[in-house]
């Protein structure tokens, strides 16, 4: 048992070390600065600039958070503070069901629903022409994917708010909304931040759904209707060629390492905030 526990816990380190070990060849050839800052991606010439991919990831993640966060906070507030208990019991299962849907299904939905929506209804108002495959499409699909994660955490956080604190504000003659705006949200802020950080890290690593709708063009996006090429999609799309071109496998493993490090950090940060919050509320 001890062995299994130690082994699975150390998986965190083993994965990190393994990916780093495989990234050494490319790190010997190019500096971190070159790898992260350059936009030139020519595997045949041994040039690997990750900048467009990093920007692609940042764009889709950013769009996803901008869409999902306000929607989810409002939803959680409604579910926890306003909805009658019967409606609450009716609504929560759907959020859970949404979290069970596999990424590839989100991708299919993105292709069938979001892409045409952007192509025919949204994009024509802003740009001359768009196929629909864009960082916006990726962002929307990702946003829906992280709905359940944010809603469930924010729900938890809101439920730990003491009734007496709400009563204190209400007793002063504040309306429920004023209480939420000035007291609850302020008190819940660390929890909301933790949920956001966790959602960002989930969005960062999402692969297949984003790959299917982003267009996968290795240029830095300048508007939401531009195509983008997020890091995970890069790894997934090129695994086939990776053994045939020198350093290519090392470059892709470096991409995986990059994802791993960022997500590890974000996860640790949010978990620490959440555990602290839990302890403070309990104590």
């Amino acid at each position, binding site marked *: 048992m001890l062995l299994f526990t130690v082994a699975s816990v150390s998986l965190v380190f083993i994965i990190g070390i393994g990916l780093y070990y495989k990234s050494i060849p490319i790190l010997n050839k190019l500096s971190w600065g070159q790898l992260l800052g350059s936009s030139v991606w020519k595997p045949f010439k041994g040039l690997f600039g990750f900048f467009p991919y990093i920007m692609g990831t940042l764009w889709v993640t950013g769009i996803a958070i901008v869409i999902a966060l306000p929607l989810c906070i409002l939803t959680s507030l409604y579910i926890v503070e306003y909805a009658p208990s019967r409606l609450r019991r009716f609504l929560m299962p759907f959020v859970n069901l949404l979290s069970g849907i596999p990424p590839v299904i989100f991708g299919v939905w993105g292709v069938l629903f979001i892409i045409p929506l952007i192509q025919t209804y949204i994009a024509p108002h802003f740009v001359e022409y768009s196929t629909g495959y864009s960082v916006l499409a990726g962002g929307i699909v990702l946003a829906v994917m992280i709905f359940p994660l944010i809603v469930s955490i924010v729900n938890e956080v809101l439920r730990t708010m003491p*009734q*007496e*604190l709400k*009563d*204190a*504000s209400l*007793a002063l*003659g*504040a309306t429920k909304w004023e209480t939420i705006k000035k007291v609850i949200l302020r008190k819940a802020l660390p929890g909301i931040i933790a949920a956001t950080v966790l959602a960002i890290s989930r969005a960062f690593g999402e692969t297949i759904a984003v790959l299917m709708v982003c267009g996968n063009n290795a240029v830095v996006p300048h508007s939401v209707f531009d195509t983008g090429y997020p890091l995970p999609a890069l790894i997934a799309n090129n695994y086939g060629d990776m053994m045939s071109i020198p350093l290519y496998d090392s470059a892709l493993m470096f991409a995986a390492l990059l994802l791993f490090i960022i997500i590890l950090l974000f996860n640790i940060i949010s978990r620490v905030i959440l555990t602290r919050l839990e302890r403070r509320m309990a104590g």
Partner: protein
Amino acid sequence: MTFEKPHISVQGLNVQIGDNHILKDINIDIPNKKVTSIIGPSGCGKTTLLKTFNRLLDNTSDVKITGKVLVDGENIYDPNIEITHIRKKMGLLSQRPYPLPMSIYDNIAYGPRIHGSPKKKDLDILVEEQLKNVGLWEEVKDRLNAPATRLSIGQQQRLCLARGLAVGPEMILGDESTSALDPLSTHIIEDLFMKLKEKYSIVLVTHILRQAARVSDYIIFVYMGKIIEYGPAEQILKNPQEQLTKEYVKGYIV
């Protein structure tokens, strides 16, 4: 007990939460500018009774309230009533202090800001006045912008009292307001109640008989969701009429 001009008049009040019949046919009058204490064993419904006075039960799920509660002659359970106005009339002091997650100054200013947009100068005066009212001014005047949670529990409770007074209520509702405090802070709060009854009607829920004896003009004894006896403090504590009250006052019912 009946009074000529009661501040609160409860008529035929029944409260059910789920299948629990918490309060059964309550009829009482609360006098103006006196201290009235509600006593009774824990779980008897005394806190629930207090919360019906400013409709804080509204947020409990599956709650059913029937009957009338008249405040200044106005039924607060009338569907057309403006609930925030009713609550503004009553300052609440809960079991444990719950300072709002903001500075000392903002805690006091919270209520006035909600009910209007007071000028900074007026607010400053009001904050100072209310903090002096509860004897906290000297202790905190140099750190008004510090988070309220940095104060000691006793100080926090006085801050909560000042916060309630800042909206200009007519009445103070105390729900076992000293149960989390040390003896000295308890003493300070009790003294404040004695001082404040000149201007405010005060209703206290307590399970400490000696506290009820120290501060009350009138006492209501509640048992199993019913009013058993109601009268002047002296009479209830020294010469109760009902058997249940006698037993409670002697400490047989806890």
